[in-house]
């Protein structure tokens, strides 16, 4: 392009020697620009050489600021140093050239209304004539190069000078643009690499693939590189499986970081706290306390028992999970609590409400709205009904294949995802449950605990509730017709049983509840003392050796002394321990 212009210049009657020299100068500078490691220095040298070549008193290069409002002198040569000088982008001859994207020769500045004398006034330099050419590439304005006061010849710039300067300006502009694009590319590459690292860490937070017959499975497909969705599942030490699926408000890096935090909290605490409602209460308090303003997490967390098919879950403001029974009937589990992070003390000490389900060979699907609102066709969402259709069609088939199919349907056609797609499934179909377990789910203790239930209470497991419990037991025992002495014994036994719950099952005060049920049979009174702690190893509970005077263990001995029957029943289906005490009437 430069060559063509120069040819034009040659046709305008420039001596062959000059063309030769012009060409050499331009070729050299073009090489300089192409190989430059330090563009500023190269530009500065270019200004110096062109000033020298054209034989002008001074030369300056002005760059247009990113906002387009200012022109800044980035390089200059001549008797006055003006590097760093800033002028309005439409000021003076240089401003004119940049705005009009045209070169200009001003032979006598005193006769040109565009000339801005302020710089001369300030520097003491006297400008007589100006040659100015804009730097622009395909209409994108970059700046201009200006030469001042031609020395040789008639002291006036001519068309030949302008053509040369214009050619140089074009290559300088290209060099600047290339350098900027290269810098942008480097920055983009850096950001991309960081995002990929973040995505890698995020993927490591998702659960590892388990053996194919593991009953819980999940898929996640981020809409961007990183995701605000997450799912997790891990076996608990009692054989049950904890599962979580959540969706952080927003997308991108802030959502991804929030996701990492919430997922980590849940995974760590979830192994110790096996009651979903209580776990979410704790995590909610933490998230609400430390979350960035306005961010929240909708989430479902639950515990699944492959032995029984029993699921206990809490839903914090999340899309209702879908439960499909063995027979194909659907039930959606609506959220009964707000999302995590809205308020630290939104709920009382009972924690987030829990829902209990018996899968009984059915399947439970937990998913984010990226699934139901995902496009399966141009502008057509999958919807809950669409998901139900897919689940119905896959009945009896491989659940992982179904998850893959959903992912493929929403994210497979090369369409940009609207939102992260995350889906988790619990497949109870492959699990065999013994009949007695089902019976216990239907009505705990229905077969082996007859008698009329006359009273029950549930209190927080704290020492200061024991007096309350004793009074209730005393009244109930008297009501059932026990003598004063027997009543005292029953009170002692229940009190000791509750102490064991506080001190040994929970290990701390106020960690959970104690529930006591009083049943009355014609021949006996039955007391069921239940906690919601981790199952206690019954083999380790022994009455103390009476020759040993050390404190502790005495309570269990006392219970055995005063009650006719003491036994731990099989752990309740949703965890905890159940102790049965029987006292015969009229012994």
């Amino acid at each position, binding site marked *: 392009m430069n060559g063509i212009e120069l040819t034009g210049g040659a046709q305008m009657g420039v001596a062959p020697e000059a063309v030769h020299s012009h060409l050499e100068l331009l070729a050299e500078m073009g090489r300089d620009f192409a190989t430059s490691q330090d563009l500023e220095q190269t530009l500065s040298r270019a200004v110096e050489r062109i000033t020298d070549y054209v034989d002008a008193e001074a030369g300056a290069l002005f760059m247009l600021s990113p906002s387009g409002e200012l022109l800044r002198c980035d390089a200059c040569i001549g008797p006055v140093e003006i590097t760093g000088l800033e002028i309005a982008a439409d000021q003076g001859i240089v401003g004119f050239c940049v705005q009009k994207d045209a070169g200009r020769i001003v032979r006598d500045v005193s006769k040109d209304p565009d000339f801005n004398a302020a710089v001369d006034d300030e520097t003491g330099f006297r400008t007589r004539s100006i040659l100015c050419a804009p730097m622009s590439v395909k209409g994108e304005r970059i700046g201009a190069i200006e030469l001042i006061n031609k020395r040789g010849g008639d002291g006036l710039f001519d068309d030949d000078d302008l053509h040369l300067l214009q050619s140089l300006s074009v290559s300088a502009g290209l060099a600047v643009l290339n350098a900027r694009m290269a810098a942008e590319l480097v920055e983009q590459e850096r950001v991309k690499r960081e995002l990929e690292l973040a995505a890698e860490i995020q993927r490591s937070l998702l659960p590892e693939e388990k053996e194919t017959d593991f009953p819980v499975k999940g898929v996640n497909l981020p809409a961007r590189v990183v995701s605000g969705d997450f799912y997790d599942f891990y076996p608990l030490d009692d054989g049950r499986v904890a599962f979580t699926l959540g969706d952080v408000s927003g997308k991108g890096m802030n959502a991804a970081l929030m996701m990492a935090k919430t997922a980590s909290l849940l995974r760590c605490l979830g192994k110790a706290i096996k009651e979903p409602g209580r776990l979410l209460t704790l995590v909610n308090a933490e998230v609400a306390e430390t979350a960035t303003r306005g961010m929240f997490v909708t989430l479902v967390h639950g515990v699944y028992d492959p032995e029984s098919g029993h699921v206990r879950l809490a839903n914090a403001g999340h899309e209702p999970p879908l439960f499909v029974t063995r027979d194909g009937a659907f039930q959606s589990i609506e959220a009964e609590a707000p999302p995590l992070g809205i308020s630290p003390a939104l709920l009382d000490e009972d924690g987030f409400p829990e829902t209990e389900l018996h899968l009984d060979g059915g399947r439970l699907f937990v998913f984010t709205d990226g699934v139901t609102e995902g496009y399966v066709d141009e502008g057509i969402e999958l919807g809950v009904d669409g998901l139900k259709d897919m689940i119905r069609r896959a009945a009896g088939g491989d659940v992982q294949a179904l998850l893959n199919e959903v992912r493929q349907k929403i994210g497979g056609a090369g369409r940009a995802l609207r939102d992260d797609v995350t889906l988790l499934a619990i497949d109870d179909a492959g699990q065999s449950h013994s009949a007695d377990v089902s019976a216990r789910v239907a009505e705990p203790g229905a077969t082996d605990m007859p008698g009329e239930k006359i009273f029950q209470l549930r209190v927080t497991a704290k020492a200061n509730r*024991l007096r309350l419990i004793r009074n209730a037991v005393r009244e109930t025992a008297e009501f059932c017709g026990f003598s004063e002495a027997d009543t005292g*014994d029953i009170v*002692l036994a229940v009190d000791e049983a509750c*102490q064991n719950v506080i001190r040994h099952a929970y290990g701390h005060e106020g960690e959970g509840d104690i529930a006591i049920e009083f049943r009355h049979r014609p021949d006996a009174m039955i007391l069921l003392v239940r906690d919601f702690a981790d199952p206690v190893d019954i083999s380790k509970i022994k009455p103390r050796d*009476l020759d040993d005077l050390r*404190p502790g263990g005495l309570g269990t001995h006392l219970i055995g002394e005063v009650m006719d029957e003491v036994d731990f029943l099989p752990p309740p289906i949703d965890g905890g321990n159940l102790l049965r005490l029987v006292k015969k009437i009229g012994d």
Partner: protein
Amino acid sequence: MEHQLSESGGAIVIAFSGDIDLQTSPEARKALLGLVGKGQPILVDLSGVGYIDSSGVASLVECLQSVKKSGQKLALVSVSDGALRVLQLARLDKVFVICGTVEEGVQSVT
């Protein structure tokens, strides 16, 4: 639960009243152990104790062991029926010196 301290015939009398259970036994234990090492014999009056549980009994046992080590003597006096029942169930009625009244207690420990 509350306790009161007094002296009788050279012995310290600590009289408890109310329930000694998981909640109050730490306080009872502290009061009892506070008397250890003072040289005087100790009488623990349980007449006002309607209920004592295993943690309360454990506090008494711990105090008894400490008292023996420091060369003091300890007796339980005026033990209520409820408290006596628990001591019997724990087979501790033979481990503790149990007296009917403070006066008998003073005679047995001095």
